[in-house]
């Protein structure tokens, strides 16, 4: 890329040099001058110039200009309200007009105290009103979804929310209806706003028109703390600010990491924060008592009990990890079990591949790509939602996005991703040839799990993407910190795991592991089970000892996201029980293992082995991505998996974004959970005489599940798709018929 030409712009008599074409708002900022804005938000696309807050005087132009719509040109002379009476009058007038029909109910408004309208009125607006007529009124508040309330009287019609819906998340559900002063924001056809990213409009709103139903009337800005942390609900690792008040989490806000999330959050990350307060949260250790169910026991007794179980099991221990532990927790567990007891056997959350380290890119590189090929069976937006936004941004910028899978732009049967990788790597493949020849080519693997990371790395290496700075590969893992957990576990010791038979003790770390059917099957074979979970109902019932787990909102430590970026989690509230590191350190001491209860010290230990000695304190608030590894392994291309034989339709299960232990415990998110439905291609539906909305029976080997059929035009014929939680025990081949 060539260096952009620098131009000199004078703003309020201050000269500043910026690249030609820089927005005037940013140019002014570079000169230390504020051009106030409401509607301007570069992340929403081109400026619209609607609110007129940014009116400035530009030399040579007779009328005031909307500063947000201008770009820096050489020799431009601009005057803002600071030095131009005309601009000051223009901005003052805009605020007067905005307040003419604004209710000014700041004392009871959630936005009060952190409200751009309030702030700018204080800085630029009239001190008193000249409006003596009744103000416009609307019905309010309108719940546009169970998570968002709309107050149309407070709305200043900046169209940030509708522009987000139309131009960022592209769900098109938020619209403007009516005209003039009667204009109002509404959902399309008054349906609930069901987008995966709907909550972002709350943060975009520069007034108190869109508020969170979870946060309404609960706090004032001067009595809250915002703690910078990272979301722990998916492998993207969006940066967040966690608002707490009196020791409780009240809301989650985005914290823009321009390379990771660009300031967007999915609704799960934003709204699922109340799960630590769920009624079935385990706050005391629980021991199974024969015929009496469970009893609480003191922490001293619990640690004694755990010690007794560990000593009895010796090396015959299997540890099942969730992938949601912090790096420090996984390392601490490993240190206790592997160094202290020589118990090396583990069920790791997922396979990880270091081969991708040579293909590393920030997620924002997707936006800048020319060609992106997404391979796999799982929908990106369910697995790593913000990646879907990056893909949409890329498409809007003119990139070509090719998806290859059962719902792809190129349709393939489930399980064919390894074959697709082989095909794309072939010399004569046209798409592969274009990936190979491009300057910004990206390949992404989105399920199935297993060795996908290795496979996509193999494809990327075969295409030579490691040698091109703007090209690379991503693997969308299943768990938020699977890579970090696996790396930490293996970094502890070198011992070879041997599968113990029989299993004397199964340690189940985390709710995800406890919900994993594979882990449950192991539990059947284990003599004893020790579980670390947050909620009743997961391990309670089959674990002999349950120790309370903590949420990502309650932990200090680090996660590694899908890019390979190590990010800091901060304890935003005190957990109701001692955290894992506290009792692990105590327990470790009894086995002669030195383990600190402090994450920063544990991290030092891990970092020396994994991250080249990176200091805990040096992980920036917006963490850096390590450079590409030079000596990463180059795996061979995958062997194609044999296609599944048999009759019937191929069942593709997927895990909905709105599933899992946290989502299940948040009342406001229940409307987002997947419907009891089976997606079917129009071809198969026609062949079976099924219409959208029909009740159907999905059968497999004697099992039958009743679901509603819904036609999905993007789904490959021969495949049906059902959300995991509704698929029951159905196998890979199913029959679908009218109920």
């Amino acid at each position, binding site marked *: 890329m060539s260096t952009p030409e620098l131009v000199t712009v004078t703003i309020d008599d201050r000269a500043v040099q910026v690249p030609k074409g820089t927005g005037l708002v940013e140019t002014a900022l570079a000169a230390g001058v504020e051009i106030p804005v409401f509607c301007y938000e570069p992340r929403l696309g081109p400026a619209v110039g*609607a609110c007129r807050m940014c009116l400035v005087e530009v030399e040579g132009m007779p009328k005031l200009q909307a500063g947000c*719509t201008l770009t820096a040109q050489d020799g431009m002379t601009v005057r803002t309200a600071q030095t131009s009476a005309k601009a000051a009058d223009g901005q003052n007038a805009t605020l*007067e007009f905005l307040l003419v029909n604004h209710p000014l109910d700041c004392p009871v408004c959630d936005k009060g105290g952190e409200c751009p309208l309030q702030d700018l009125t204080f800085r630029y607006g009239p001190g008193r009103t*000249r409006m003596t007529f009744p103000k416009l009124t609307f019905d309010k508040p309108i719940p546009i979804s169970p998570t968002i309330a709309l107050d149309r009287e407070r709305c*200043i*019609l900046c169209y940030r929310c509708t522009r987000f819906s139309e131009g960022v998340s592209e769900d098109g559900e938020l619209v403007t209806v009516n005209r*003039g*002063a009667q204009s109002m924001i509404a959902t399309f056809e008054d349906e609930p706003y069901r987008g995966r990213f709907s909550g972002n409009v709350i943060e975009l709103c520069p007034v108190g028109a869109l508020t969170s139903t979870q946060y309404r009337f609960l706090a004032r800005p001067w009595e809250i703390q915002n703690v910078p942390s990272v979301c722990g609900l998916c492998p993207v690792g969006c940066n967040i600010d966690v608002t707490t008040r009196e020791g409780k989490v009240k809301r989650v806000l985005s914290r823009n990491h321009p390379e990771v999330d660009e300031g967007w959050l999915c609704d799960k990350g934003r709204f699922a924060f109340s799960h630590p307060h769920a009624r079935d949260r385990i706050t005391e250790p629980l021991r199974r008592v024969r015929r009496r169910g469970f009893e609480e026991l003191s922490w001293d007794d619990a640690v004694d009990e755990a010690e007794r179980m560990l000593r009895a099991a010796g090396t015959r221990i299997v540890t099942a990890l969730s992938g949601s532990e912090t790096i420090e927790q996984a390392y601490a567990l490993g240190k206790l079990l592997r160094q202290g007891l020589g118990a090396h056997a583990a069920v790791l959350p997922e396979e990880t591949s270091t081969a991708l380290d040579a293909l590393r890119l920030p997620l924002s590189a997707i936006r800048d790509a020319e060609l992106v090929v997404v391979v796999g069976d799982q929908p990106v937006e369910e697995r790593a939602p913000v990646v879907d936004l990056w893909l949409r941004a890329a498409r809007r910028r003119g990139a070509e996005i090719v998806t290859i899978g059962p719902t792809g732009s190129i349709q393939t049967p489930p399980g064919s991703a390894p074959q697709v990788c082989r095909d794309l790597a072939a010399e004569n493949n046209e798409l592969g040839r274009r990936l190979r020849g491009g300057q910004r080519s990206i390949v992404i693997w989105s399920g199935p799990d297993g060795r996908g990371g290795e496979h996509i790395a193999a494809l990327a290496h075969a295409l030579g993407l490691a040698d091109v700075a703007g090209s690379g590969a991503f693997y969308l893992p299943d768990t938020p910190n699977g890579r970090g957990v696996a790396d930490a576990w293996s970094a502890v010791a070198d011992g070879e795991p041997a599968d113990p038979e029989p299993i004397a003790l199964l340690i189940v770390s985390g709710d995800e592991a406890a919900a994993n059917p594979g882990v449950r099957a192991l539990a059947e074979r284990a003599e004893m089970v020790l579980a670390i979970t947050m909620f009743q109902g997961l391990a309670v019932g089959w674990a002999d000892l349950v120790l309370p787990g903590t949420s990502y909102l309650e932990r200090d430590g680090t996660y590694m996201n899908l890019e390979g970026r190590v990010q800091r989690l901060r304890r935003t509230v005190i957990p109701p029980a001692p955290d894992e590191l506290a009792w692990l350190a105590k327990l470790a001491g009894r086995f002669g293992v030195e383990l600190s209860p402090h994450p920063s010290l544990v991290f030092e230990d891990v970092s020396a082995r994994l991250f080249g000695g990176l200091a805990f304190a040096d992980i920036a608030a917006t963490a850096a991505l390590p450079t590409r590894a030079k000596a990463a392994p180059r795996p061979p291309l995958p062997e194609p998996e044999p296609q599944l034989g048999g009759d019937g339709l191929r069942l593709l299960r997927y895990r909905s974004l709105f599933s899992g232990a946290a989502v299940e415990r948040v009342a406001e998110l229940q409307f987002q959970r997947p419907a009891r439905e089976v997606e079917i291609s129009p071809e198969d539906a026609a062949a079976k005489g099924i219409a959208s909305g029909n009740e159907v029976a999905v059968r497999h080997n004697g099992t039958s599940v009743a679901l509603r059929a819904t036609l999905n035009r993007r789904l490959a014929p021969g495949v049906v798709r059902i959300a995991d939680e509704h698929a029951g025990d159905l196998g890979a081949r199913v029959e679908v018929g009218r109920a």
Partner: protein
Amino acid sequence: MPLRELVLEGAGERDLTKLGEYREVGGYAALERALGMDPGKVIEEITVGTLRGRGGAGFPMGRKASLIAKGSPNPTYLVVNADESEPGAFKDRQIMGTVPHRLIEGCLITAHGIESRSVFIYIRGEYLHEFEVMRAALEETRGADLLGGITIVLHRGAGAYICGEETALLESLEGKRGQPRTRPPYPPITGLYASPTQINNVQTIATVPKIIELGGAEFAKIGPQNSPGTAVFSLSGNVVRPGNYELELGTSLRELIYDIGGGVAGGRELKAIIPGGSSVPVLTPEQLDTPLDFDSIAAAGSFLGSAAVMVIDDRCCMVQLALRVSKFYMHESCGKCTPCREGTRWLVQLLDRLEGGQGTQADLDLLDSVCARMLGRSLCALGDFAVYPVSSYMEKYRDEFQAHVDEAGCPFGGESSVEGILAPVDQHSHHKTVEVPA
């Protein structure tokens, strides 16, 4: 001065909605001639003819065409603005209803000139009859193989004044909410579907065949030097013979109103003249000798606009008229930008109070202030259009406004009449649906 019909030529004598009749008066000969010319030459003729846009702004059509982005990977479009919605204007209605082929011919010539293959005519939704006439004419043209591979699409608006603003029209045409875009980029660079777009008013395009027929140099000799050609003036209000009259530009207001229009109806006295549709500043009887061309009207402090001349007699209360006009702009403000959305409503509230007799001196000052704070600050011209009438009425008929405060009511009592000048906004006809043949 007699009528000088270029655009409406022949429509008085014959049914020019029929292709056969139109061809008999030389129709589509200019197209044939233009097709034999280099596209650049066509635009050159228009440029030499100094054809200024008849939609309101008077921007030279040739210069617009010269701005069209060259070498764009996207196609070039021609869009005809037939969303005539300015209160007082009904010229495009007559052009489409009586000489549809002249408009189509103009489209085809212009499309050739700018090398476009696609033409969109955006017709005001309420103009159902004119739409039908245009549709029938287009069918005939297609049947006679005159389109030469060019697609002409007739698109009906859905009843929004703002869609006459060119960028809002383009948004609407794209299927979006009809709201203006911020400019730049201008339509010749980024217009319809982000492609280079020429957009002109009906009358402008319908004048193009005459320019090709006469040649640009000859056309430029008609009327005043800087505003050559004719305009179809929509004469309305308190005048004896309202109607559309096509005259050379430069004809004086006096000639139009008195010689052609028969003067003020009922022998009443002329009080005010609106020379270019409800949005432009008002003129007084002392300005009757102003020539009706872009520059002369501008020099008189108003705009030629859409050449809709409204005659107002001495029965009219200017506060009532301002209120009626303001209600229209409040109703039609799209709501996108703040000054227009909020200001138009506030103006109505203030005028309503004034007319109701509750207005105070402070309200009068506030009215001035609101006008001043709206003017020049909106995203598109609608905000200014809402201000021009109010501020100019207040400037020129200040005594009347003052009297409303001093006498705590309307000095005209029940005697005032704004009937026949502008229909109240709630009487605007609503959008009719078209029967779709089975």
